[in-house]
């Protein structure tokens, strides 16, 4: 594997995480629990679609088949998407949406902080721009986890259930393979294992303030980074790819 190939893969992973989570959140536009929160979730979705655009644009330049960002976003088959399973999980109730977001934001913030000093100037630039947005996302999701955890009996129970269900997908945030090994060695990306303690501290601090506890069942799901997705992914793609599949080769 060349550095360029590894960088393509890495950028694609980040782009897919942003794209699929942005797509999930966009389903909620117009359906948020209160108007202020509808605006906030839509805003986060918009930021993520923006980040996906920058990342997939770069991935397209590194792609051996020279696909552009829209071809990458809309015209791959399911097993070619390399997002983690967490981000494709359905929105569920507001607690599920927020908890999913929190686990992701805590990781993404730590990753972007380190990536913003990458030797790869393009990636560093994208990370620096995205970090400003993602820090706000983390603040928003952390505050809601705490509010729901330490709110009413019902909200505590609901978000504890969300945590029990979704925490099993968090492990995959720290997936590493030869792509990472090569790029870490070249000083282009940080090691995921190095990000883990930072993420763990954020998660523990917020869960403590929220009076929530980590699930006893510590089963770890993974597969997304290798293109093995959950049953939910096919429906998400059918929806997202509808126009491109129905009307091939047209400009919009």
């Amino acid at each position, binding site marked *: 594997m060349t550095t360029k190939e590894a960088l393509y893969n890495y950028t694609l992973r980040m782009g897919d995480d942003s794209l699929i989570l942005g797509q999930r959140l966009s389903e909620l536009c117009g*359906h948020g*629990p209160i108007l202020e929160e509808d605006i906030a979730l839509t805003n986060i979705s918009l930021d993520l679609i923006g980040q996906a655009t920058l990342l997939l644009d770069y991935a397209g330049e590194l792609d051996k088949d020279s696909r552009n960002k829209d071809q990458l976003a809309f015209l791959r088959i399911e097993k070619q998407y390399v997002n983690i399973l967490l981000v494709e999980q359905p929105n569920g109730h507001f607690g599920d949406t927020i908890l999913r977001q929190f686990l992701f934001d805590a990781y993404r913030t730590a990753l972007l902080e380190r990536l913003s000093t990458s030797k790869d100037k393009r990636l560093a630039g994208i990370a620096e721009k995205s970090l400003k947005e993602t820090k706000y996302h983390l603040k928003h999701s952390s505050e809601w986890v705490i509010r729901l955890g330490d709110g009413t009996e019902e909200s505590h129970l609901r978000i504890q259930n969300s945590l029990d269900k979704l925490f099993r997908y968090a492990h995959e945030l720290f997936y590493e393979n030869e792509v990472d090994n090569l790029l870490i060695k070249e000083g282009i990306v940080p090691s995921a294992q190095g990000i883990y303690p930072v993420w763990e501290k954020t998660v523990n601090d917020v869960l403590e303030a929220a009076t929530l506890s980590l699930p006893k069942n510590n089963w770890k799901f993974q597969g997304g980074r290798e293109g093995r997705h959950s049953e939910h992914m096919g429906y998400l793609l059918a929806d997202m790819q509808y126009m491109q599949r129905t009307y091939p080769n047209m400009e919009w």
Partner: protein
Amino acid sequence: MMEIDNKELENKFQQKIDRDIKIEPNDWMPDAYRTTLIRQISQHAHSEVVGMLPEGNWITRAPNLRRKAVLLAKVQDEAGHGLYLYSAAETLGADREQTIDDLHSGKAKYSSIFNYPTLTWADMGAVGWLVDGAAIMNQVPLCRCSYGPYARAMIRVCKEESFHQRQGFEIMTKLAGGAIEQKEMAQDALNRFWWPALMMFGPSDADSSHTEQSMKWKIKRHTNDELRQMFVDVTVPQIETLGLTVPDPDVKWNEVKGRYDYGPIDWDEFWQVVGGNGPCNKERVDARRKAKEDGKWVVEAAMAFTNKRNSKKSA
């Protein structure tokens, strides 16, 4: 004595209006002025929020990344407009949650256009271009409305609506200049949204119950028919620019009057949709009601959390 005082206050109020001095929340105003404004502003707020749904219907299916981002931003703007408007209604003493509950119970109305379905991507073009275009016609004069908070909210809203209208027209331009399927999609969207867009200006002047008083109070500056005519005059040339066909065989330039003539509007359809029998009335209100019901535990949690923190602080 009281009656004389009120008469005098009313005279002073009308004099301010006649001299184009804005009425502010703490100023004296006749009850009917307050009631009319609360009704109009909260209906306007509901229209913004319900209006998120037909366009929200296409966000997940937007054809490329740029269109997805622009549509998200646009629908988010509508939510923001809803917020300013609910706040403007609150300055008159309306309770936001109560007005929202009135929407959910069917007591309060919203713009009927949002009871039509969005069936293809071209509808995102048609809605932005025609619906936001008609909204601008209605709202630009509201920037000079006699009630200060409403007028000021409208200035900001109109700036954003004008961007929305342009993005809708841009979608239509792309489709009209595209493949045959795209051009057909654009024409079909225009056919379906043309008449409902004309109906957005409300019943014809002869049947409009609120127009006369609202004009005297300068809440309204033009009659429904005047605004509708302005819209037709601006839009017909745009349809021609796109190379599409106006879905009304009676549309003809009238040299004498210096404006376009157009065919009769199906007012029966208008009243049916206002009365709840549009294709999506039930779905729209159900979606809003569901959002509130699903969010109830979230709001309760946020309140309980705030109360806990406040009592910790004061302890």
